[in-house]
C-alpha cells in the first residue's frame, strides 16, 4: 500500500518525519519497502498562464506563446498540441534545471527567441504518460511555485502489509496504528450524514445473507460526470498509485484509500428492478469493467438486478452497468462481504483489484454507512446531484461478532520470557483501541471492529509484544536440557560421501528438479515422469526422474565454455510415478569427462575409460563398507553405450547404473568428446556395515599366480566367483592382475592372470597344502571352461 506522508499527517498529529514514520512502522511489523519523494525538486517551476498563442512563422508544429508567471511576461516557443490561450501549465523559468538534467536557458527556436519552457508531466518527473502540457486547474494561482501549489513537498511510503493487517489498508487505519505506536493523537474527522434531497431509494434483496450480511445502497440523481476532479484528490490518488478516471470513480477510490471501504457506483439507468445479492449460477456470463467476458462459478457472489449479474461482488464491477460519460443518475454501493466468498476468486480469474484485496483480508464490518455518507458528500461537492436516503439491507445475525478474548498476564510473560506488568499491557491494549476489562490478573479484551485478526489469546500477546517492541523484550542465551540423539553409525552421513567425492576430483553441482518432457524423451527417461500442473516453462514441465538430464546439461554448457576435463556429481531427489504409486528417491549422479588423470609432463595423457568410472563406484562402496553383496551386470539402458554400460546390483537388486554415454546420444548433444555417467541409489550408498573385528592371521601369507587362456565371452566376475568357491578356506583373496590379447593367444580368447593369496589363521602353510589349493582352483576352472594354461 502506497500512502503519502502528508495525507497521513491530516489524520494524526505527527512530530516525526517520513523516514521516522517508516522506521516505526517497520519495527512494528508494517514493513516499509520504500520512502520516496512524490516529485523531484522543482525549484524554478511555477504555475504559468498562456496569454497568447500564435503559430510560429517558420514551423508548422510550433507555437509562439506569451506566458505569465515569471517575473515578467515571457515569450515561449512551445510544441505541445494542447498549448492554447488561457491554459494554466507548469512553467520552467530561466535557470531551472529539470529532473532530466535539462537547464533552461534563453534559446532561439527557428529564429524566435524563447525564454523558458512549458512542461509536461514526464518532463517534471511526475508521470510516465504525456498528452502534452500538464493542464492545471483554471484557479491555480499564476506565478505560485508548482511544488507549493501541488503540495509536492511530500513523500510516499510504500508499505508491504502482511495479510493479517487488513485494518491498515487505509489512511485512517495507518493513522490509528501510528497513534498506537507513537502515542500521537488521532485527528477526529467525523463524517456528517448527508440529508436526502429526494425520496428515491433502491430495493435490495439479500439472497446470500451469509456471504453478504450488509448491503447499503443510495441513489444520487443528476450528477455531472464531466466535472473535474479537484487537484488535491487527483494528487492524493496519484500518490497511492491510482489514476484519475472521472469524478465518481475517483471518489469511490478516494474513500477506499481514506477509510478502507471498497465501494462501487452503478449507472442507475442500466439497472432493471431490484438489486439482488446472490450466488452466481454456474456459467452465467458477465462482462467485467476491464472488458473481459467471463463465465461465473457458483461459488462466486454477484450483485444482480432482476435480469442479470451487474458486478462480481467485492471483486470488480461489470462494464454494461458502469458509470460512463452518459451517466446522469447513479446507485452507490457500500457493502460487507465475507472474506470466504471473496478469497481466491480474483486470483482464479487472473484479477488483482484493490477491492478484492481488502475484502479477502477482511474489511471493518461497521464501516459501510460512514463510507457511503462520506462518498455522497464528496460526489455532491464535486459533481453535484441530489442524494436519496441511505437504504440498508442487513442480516445482523450473519455479521461477524468481535470475540471477547481472555488474556492471562502470566501466560503472556511466560511465552515472551518477559516480566511486563499489568499496567503496561493494559496501556498498550487501550492504545490499540481495544476495550479492556480486568478480571484478576487477566484481561478481557475486545478489539475494535476493524481488527479482524484478533480472535485468540496469542493474537493479543503478539500485539502487546509488537507495540512494546521486540527489541525491548529479553533475550536468553541458548541453554536447556542436554539430550543425546546420535545418528546411527550404520548410516554414512551424506556429507562424508560428498567430501570423499570432492577429494577424488568431483565438483558438486545443484541442478533443477524440473526438466523438459522432450529432454526426458530424448534420453529414454520419460517413463514415470510426473508433470506439473502449472510449470514455469516447457523445459521445466515435469519432475526429474533421474539426475542425468542435469548432469548432461551442466556438462554440455561447461564443455562449450571450453573446460575439457572435469568430474561432476549431484545428490538429490528424483521422482517417479509408477504402478505402485509415487516415489521419491535420493540419488547420487556422477559424470566424468576428459583425461584419466590430470595432464602431466611425465606421461602421455590418457583418456578416461569405463574402468575409471567403475573404479570410482567400487571405491565408494568399499571405502564406506556399504552393506550388501555388490555385483555388476551388463546393461542395455538406452542412454549408455551397449558395450560399456552396467547395472549395479546390491544383493541382486538393481541400485544404480554406470557407463559411457551412447555415441548416438553424443551426436544429438553435439559434444566434442564422450563422458562416463553413473547414477546410484543414495540409500544403498549410505547404509554401511558396522565393523566387527575377526581374528587376523599372524602367519605368513603366500602368493601364487596362475595364467590361462580362456574364451573372451566368459565374464571375469564369473571366473573370480568360481576361483573363490574352489579355493577353500586357505584362499584369502584372489584378483585379476593381467589381461592379454594378441600374439600367442587365439582370436576370441584372452589370457588372464590371477593372483591367489593363501594363508591359514593358525599355522604356516606347507608347500603341499599350497600346491593342493592351487590345483583345486585350476581343476575347477578346467572342469567348467576350456582353458589353456600359460607359463
Amino acid at each position, binding site marked *: 500500500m502506497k500512502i503519502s506522508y502528508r495525507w497521513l499527517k491530516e489524520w494524526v498529529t505527527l512530530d516525526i518525519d517520513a523516514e521516522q514514520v517508516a522506521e516505526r512502522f*517497520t*519495527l*512494528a*511489523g508494517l*514493513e516499509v519497502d520504500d520512502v520516496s519523494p512524490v516529485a523531484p525538486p522543482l525549484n524554478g517551476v511555477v504555475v504559468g498562464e498562456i496569454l497568447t498563442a500564435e503559430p510560429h512563422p517558420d514551423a508548422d508544429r510550433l507555437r509562439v506563446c506569451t506566458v505569465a508567471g515569471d517575473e515578467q511576461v515571457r515569450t515561449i516557443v512551445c510544441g505541445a498540441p494542447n498549448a492554447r490561450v488561457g491554459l494554466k501549465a507548469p512553467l520552467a523559468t530561466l535557470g531551472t534545471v529539470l529532473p532530466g538534467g535539462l537547464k533552461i536557458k534563453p534559446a532561439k527556436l527557428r529564429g524566435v527567441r524563447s525564454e523558458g519552457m512549458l512542461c509536461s508531466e514526464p518532463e517534471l518527473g511526475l508521470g510516465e504518460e504525456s498528452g502534452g502540457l500538464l493542464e492545471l486547474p483554471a484557479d491555480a494561482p499564476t506565478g505560485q511555485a508548482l511544488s507549493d501549489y501541488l503540495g509536492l513537498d511530500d513523500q510516499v511510503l510504500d508499505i508491504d502489509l502482511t*495479510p*493479517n*493487517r487488513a485494518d491498515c489498508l487505509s489512511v485512517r487505519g495507518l493513522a490509528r496504528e501510528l497513534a498506537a505506536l507513537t502515542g500521537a493523537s488521532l485527528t477526529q474527522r467525523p463524517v456528517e450524514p448527508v440529508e436526502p434531497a429526494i425520496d428515491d431509494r433502491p430495493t435490495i434483496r439479500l439472497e446470500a445473507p451469509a456471504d453478504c450480511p450488509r448491503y447499503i445502497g443510495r441513489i444520487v440523481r443528476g450528477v455531472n460526470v464531466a466535472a473535474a476532479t479537484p487537484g488535491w484528490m487527483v494528487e492524493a490518488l496519484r500518490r497511492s498509485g491510482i489514476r484519475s478516471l472521472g469524478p465518481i470513480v475517483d471518489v469511490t477510490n478516494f474513500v477506499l484509500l481514506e477509510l478502507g471501504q471498497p465501494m462501487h457506483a452503478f449507472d442507475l439507468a442500466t439497472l432493471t428492478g431490484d438489486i439482488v445479492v446472490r450466488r452466481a449460477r454456474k456459467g452465467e456470463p458477465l462482462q467485467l469493467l476491464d472488458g473481459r467476458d467471463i463465465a461465473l462459478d457458483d461459488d462466486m457472489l454477484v450483485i444482480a438486478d432482476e435480469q442479470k449479474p451487474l458486478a462480481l461482488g467485492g471483486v470488480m464491477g461489470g462494464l454494461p452497468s458502469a458509470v460512463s460519460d452518459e451517466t446522469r443518475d447513479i446507485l452507490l454501493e457500500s457493502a460487507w462481504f465475507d472474506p470466504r466468498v471473496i478469497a481466491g476468486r480474483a*486470483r482464479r480469474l487472473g484479477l488483482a483489484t484493490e477491492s478484492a484485496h481488502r475484502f*479477502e483480508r477482511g474489511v471493518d464490518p461497521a464501516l459501510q454507512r460512514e463510507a457511503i455518507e462520506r462518498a455522497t458528500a464528496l460526489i455532491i461537492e464535486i459533481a453535484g446531484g441530489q442524494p436519496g436516503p441511505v437504504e440498508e439491507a442487513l442480516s445482523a445475525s450473519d455479521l461477524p461478532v468481535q470475540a471477547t478474548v481472555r488474556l492471562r498476564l502470566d501466560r503472556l510473560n*511466560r*511465552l*515472551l*520470557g*518477559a516480566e511486563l506488568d499489568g499496567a503496561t499491557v493494559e496501556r498498550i491494549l487501550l492504545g490499540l483501541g481495544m476495550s479492556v476489562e480486568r478480571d484478576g490478573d487477566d484481561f478481557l479484551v475486545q478489539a475494535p471492529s476493524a481488527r479482524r485478526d484478533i480472535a485468540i489469546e*496469542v493474537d493479543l*500477546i*503478539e500485539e502487546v509484544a*509488537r507495540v512494546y517492541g*521486540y*527489541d525491548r523484550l*529479553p*533475550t*536468553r*542465551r*541458548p541453554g*536447556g*536440557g*542436554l*539430550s543425546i540423539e546420535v*545418528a546411527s553409525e550404520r548410516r554414512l552421513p551424506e*556429507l562424508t560421501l*560428498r567430501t570423499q567425492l*570432492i577429494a*577424488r*576430483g568431483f*565438483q*558438486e553441482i*545443484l541442478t*533443477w*528438479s*524440473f526438466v523438459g518432457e522432450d529432454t526426458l524423451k530424448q534420453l529414454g527417461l520419460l517413463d514415470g515422469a*510426473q*508433470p*506439473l*500442473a*502449472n510449470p514455469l516453462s516447457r523445459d521445466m514441465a515435469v*519432475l526429474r526422474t533421474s539426475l542425468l538430464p542435469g548432469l548432461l546439461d*551442466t556438462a554440455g*554448457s561447461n564443455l562449450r*565454455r571450453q*573446460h575439457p576435463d*572435469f*568430474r561432476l556429481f549431484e545428490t538429490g*531427489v528424483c521422482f517417479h510415478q509408477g504402478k505402485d504409486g509415487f516415489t*521419491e528417491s535420493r540419488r547420487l549422479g556422477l559424470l566424468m569427462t576428459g583425461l584419466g588423470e*590430470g595432464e*602431466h*609432463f*611425465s606421461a602421455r595423457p590418457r583418456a578416461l575409460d569405463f574402468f575409471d568410472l567403475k573404479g570410482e563406484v567400487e571405491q565408494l562402496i568399499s571405502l564406506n563398507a556399504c552393506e550388501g553383496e555388490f555385483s555388476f551386470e551388463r546393461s542395455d539402458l538406452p542412454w549408455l553405450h551397449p558395450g560399456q554400460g552396467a547395472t549395479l546390483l546390491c544383493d541382486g537388486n538393481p541400485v544404480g547404473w554406470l557407463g559411457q554415454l551412447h555415441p548416438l546420444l553424443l551426436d544429438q548433444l553435439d559434444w566434442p568428446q564422450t563422458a562416463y555417467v553413473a547414477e546410484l541409489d543414495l540409500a544403498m550408498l549410505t547404509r554401511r556395515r558396522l565393523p566387527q573385528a575377526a581374528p587376523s592371521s599372524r602367519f605368513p601369507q603366500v602368493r601364487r599366480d596362475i595364467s590361462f587362456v580362456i574364451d573372451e565371452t566368459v565374464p571375469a566376475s564369473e571366473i573370480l566367483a568360481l576361483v573363490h568357491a574352489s579355493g577353500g578356506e586357505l584362499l584369502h583373496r584372489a584378483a585379476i592382475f593381467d589381461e592379454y590379447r594378441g600374439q600367442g593367444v587365439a582370436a576370441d580368447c584372452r589370457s588372464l592372470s590371477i593372483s591367489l593369496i593363501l594363508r591359514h589363521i593358525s599355522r604356516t602353510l606347507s608347500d603341499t597344502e599350497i600346491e593342493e589349493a592351487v590345483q583345486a582352483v585350476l581343476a575347477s576352472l578346467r572342469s567348467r571352461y576350456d582353458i589353456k594354461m600359460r607359463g
Partner: protein
Amino acid sequence: MTTVSPEGLLEQALEQVQQATNEASLDEVRVAYLGKKGALTGLLKQLGQLPPETRREAGQAVNRCKQALETAIEARHETLHRQAIEARLRAEQVDITMPGRTLPSGGPHPVHRALDRILAIFGQLGFNVATGPEVEDDHYNFGALNFPEHHPARAMHDTFYLPDGRVLRTHTSPVQIRVMESSEPPVRIVAPGRVFRSDSDQTHTPQFHQVEGLLVDRDVSFADLKGLLSEFVNAFFEESLEVRLRPSYFPFTEPSAEVDVRWRNEDGSPGRWLEVLGCGIVHPNVLANCGIDPEEYTGYAFGLGVERFAMLRYRVNDLRLFFENDLNFLGQFR
C-alpha cells in the same frame, strides 16, 4: 731370497688406494693386499721362515702396515661412498617447481557448503536433522500449518501444483508437522531441503534451499528464540553482528518475526539491515493439529534461506549463479 718389505708393500698399496675411483676397484686393492692370498697376508704367512729373534719384530711391522692399510681403505671407502651418493643425488635431482600429478580439483557447491555449516552449528546446539518429501499434500504444506483454504496467506507462496492437487513443498515447514505427529516433545530438529516457488526473476529462482528449525518443550519463550538466532547468526558469520527481530506474519507462528542483520560495509562501518530469517512462537493451532497440548508445551520455529546465507557469506551478488553450475564460478568455493 728377495724379501719384500711390508713398508714397501704399504706404500705401493696406499698409492693404489688413492687411485681407486670406485668401491669395486678399492675392494680389488683390499683383496690384493689383505685378502687370503694378498701380499701382506703372504708376508705374515712367511714369518715362520724367519729366525725366531727377528720374527716378532717383523710380525709387528707387518701388522702395523696391515692396520695402516685397512684404515686407509676405510677412509677411501668412506670418501668413495660419499662421492657415489653425491653423484646419485646429482643425477636424481628434479625441478621441484614442476607441477605434481593431480586429479581435476573437485569442490562443494556453495549452497551446500553454507548448508553444511548451518547444520553443523545447529548440530552443536543439539538440533537433529529431520527430512521430508519434496512433493507434499495440501495438509502438510498448508492446512496443518494453519493456512486456511483460500486464505491470502497462501498467495504469499507461489505454489507449483501437480495435476492431482499435491504441491511441490513451498517451504520445509511441513517437516515440523511430520516430526510433531510422529514424536513426543521435547522436539529439537532442523529440516534442510529443497523448496519450490513458481517465481523466476533476478532475485527469485523457482527452487531454493531452506532450513527449518523447530524446538518444542515446556516453557520455551520468545526470549529463547531471540537468543538462539542471534547466537546462530554470529556463529555463522564469525562476527558479532547486530541482530534485530521485527514483527511479521506467518500463519504457523505467533508472535512472528523477521530477523534482520546489520551488515557491515567493506570499511567496517555499520551498513544496511538485511533480512535473513523468519521465525516465531509456534501457533497453538499448529501444536493442536499435531496432538500437542499448547497449554503444556510451547515452541519456536524458524526458517532460513540457504542461498541468502551463501550469498552474504561468500559475497555472491546474483542468486541465479547458483543454478547455472558454471565451473568457473563453482571452482571458487573449494
